């Protein structure tokens, strides 16, 4: 059985960076559904699965894996939009019901894919399958693409949410839905769009990571726990926190799994996450306090 936190990558130092990026990439979609909409989204892993199988299916049908990767985000986004509009929007603020509903949708997607494609492992071709050497370090180009795509997704998310009218509309919706509604914002549509974007990003992550892993119907399940660890450690709703948490946990796994056994490394990652969650709030409070102190000293000077 595949260990829960395993992301199978060969040993070299560049892979520590790839693991950091992977942890951010699998969690960034949760920033929309869990971080902003407060949906404990157990179907997130299955949207990664949908992305991976879309890449595989299109590759099989057309021979173009790149086309499959381009189609993966919209396919996952459409499924996400349907799940939100048809099921989750009717369960607003009913946390347990939402949890069960997302678990049920995840089960349906997983079993549906297993019925169509069987449980046999599938491979998605590496679209580049070449490496470059930089300062003696061998860098497989597809892994570099994964790292660059992660940076692009994070920057795009930050800009979209902070600098655009749509982002302001969505932030207003999640901060105070009643006020947003009475100021003319269609909050129902805003929630659906946010959930669809989160699902689409999960689909993108699933497709981008597929050439680095074996794809089976359990593919999404193994990413779900690390994605939630990152999202929770980062602080719900904080994109900066999510990136820091992804780098910390991915970096920890990367540094450890090449020196100790993979299972022990994953256990230590969970331990780091738990300690990090406990230490986060006092640490942030102390940092904010010292920043206030510095401002006061500067003003009095």
């Amino acid at each position, binding site marked *: 059985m595949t260990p829960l936190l395993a992301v199978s990558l060969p040993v070299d130092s560049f892979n520590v960076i790839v693991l950091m990026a992977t942890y951010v990439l699998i969690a960034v979609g949760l920033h929309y559904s869990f971080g902003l909409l407060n949906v404990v989204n157990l179907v997130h892993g299955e949207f990664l699965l949908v992305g991976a199988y879309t890449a595989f299916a299109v590759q099989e049908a057309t021979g173009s894996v790149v086309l499959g990767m381009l189609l993966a985000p919209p396919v996952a986004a459409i499924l996400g939009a349907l799940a939100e509009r048809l099921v989750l929007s009717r369960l607003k603020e009913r946390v347990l019901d939402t949890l069960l509903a997302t678990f049920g949708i995840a089960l349906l997607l997983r079993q549906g894919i297993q019925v169509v494609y069987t449980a046999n492992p599938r491979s998605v071709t590496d679209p580049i399958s070449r490496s470059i050497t930089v300062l003696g370090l061998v860098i497989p180009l597809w892994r570099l693409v994964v790292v660059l795509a992660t940076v692009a997704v994070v920057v795009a998310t930050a800009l979209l949410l902070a600098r655009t009218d749509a982002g302001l509309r969505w932030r207003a919706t999640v901060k*105070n839905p*009643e006020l*947003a*509604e*009475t*100021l003319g914002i269609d909050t129902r549509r805003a929630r659906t769009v946010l959930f669809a974007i989160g699902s689409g990003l999960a689909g993108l992550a699933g497709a981008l990571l597929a050439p680095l892993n074996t794809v089976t119907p359990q593919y999404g399940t193994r990413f779900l726990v690390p994605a939630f660890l990152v999202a929770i450690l980062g602080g719900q709703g904080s994109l900066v926190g999510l990136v820091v948490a992804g780098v910390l946990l991915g970096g920890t796994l990367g540094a450890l799994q090449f020196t100790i056994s993979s299972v022990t490394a994953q256990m230590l990652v969970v331990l780091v996450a738990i300690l990090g969650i406990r230490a986060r709030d006092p640490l942030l409070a102390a940092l904010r306090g010292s920043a206030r102190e510095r401002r006061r000293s500067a003003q009095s000077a």
Partner: protein
Amino acid sequence: MSGVPALELERLSVAYGRITVVREIDLEVPASGVVCLLGRNGAGKTTLLKAVMGLLPRTGTVRIDGRDSTGWSGARVNRAGVAWVPQESGVFPGITVAEHLHVATRFDRAGLDREVLDLFPVLEQRSNQHADTLSGGERKMLGMALAMLSRPRLILLDEPTEGVAPVIVDELVDLIKRLSERCALLLVEQNLDTALATGDHCYVLEQGSIVASGDPRTLHRDGELEARLAV
């Protein structure tokens, strides 16, 4: 359209589960002027406003500018020309005052009405500040500015003077009078002085039902309002 009332309620009832909070209300707000809805805490005033805004399920008829608004969302009610200033002066935490104003103009930078901004100079001074860091009085002013920027034909004002320092109350009463020159107002109040200073007509709500209505000064002379509002 000037003859058509801005708002008409016919047999409006609202219930939370099996508890009816507002019972068969008939009420009319003309296209201009200030109508006050007076009542003690728990009389159902805020519930009534939320039902008008489409935020609560209801029975009966709500007509906005003569159009039946059954099934409309809050956004649609707002787009039909009704703005709501909630009692708690809700804001979007972590979002700046300038961004609040941008939302209220429906993301139209040309819609930032200079006249409205001139009424609330403090908001320009605080434009880069997160709205949740404003004082209570400043939040009330932000709430009124947000309502005005959506260019409404009717504003629902929910207890604007509640919890505000007396010196700010006078400022708010003055603002309400200036607001009433631009559109119709339905002013929900417990404060009798505010109602007397601004209202053209008033309804008194008691345990979810209208128990008196008429000119506020006449009702005041008759002792009706004191009797109904006395704690």
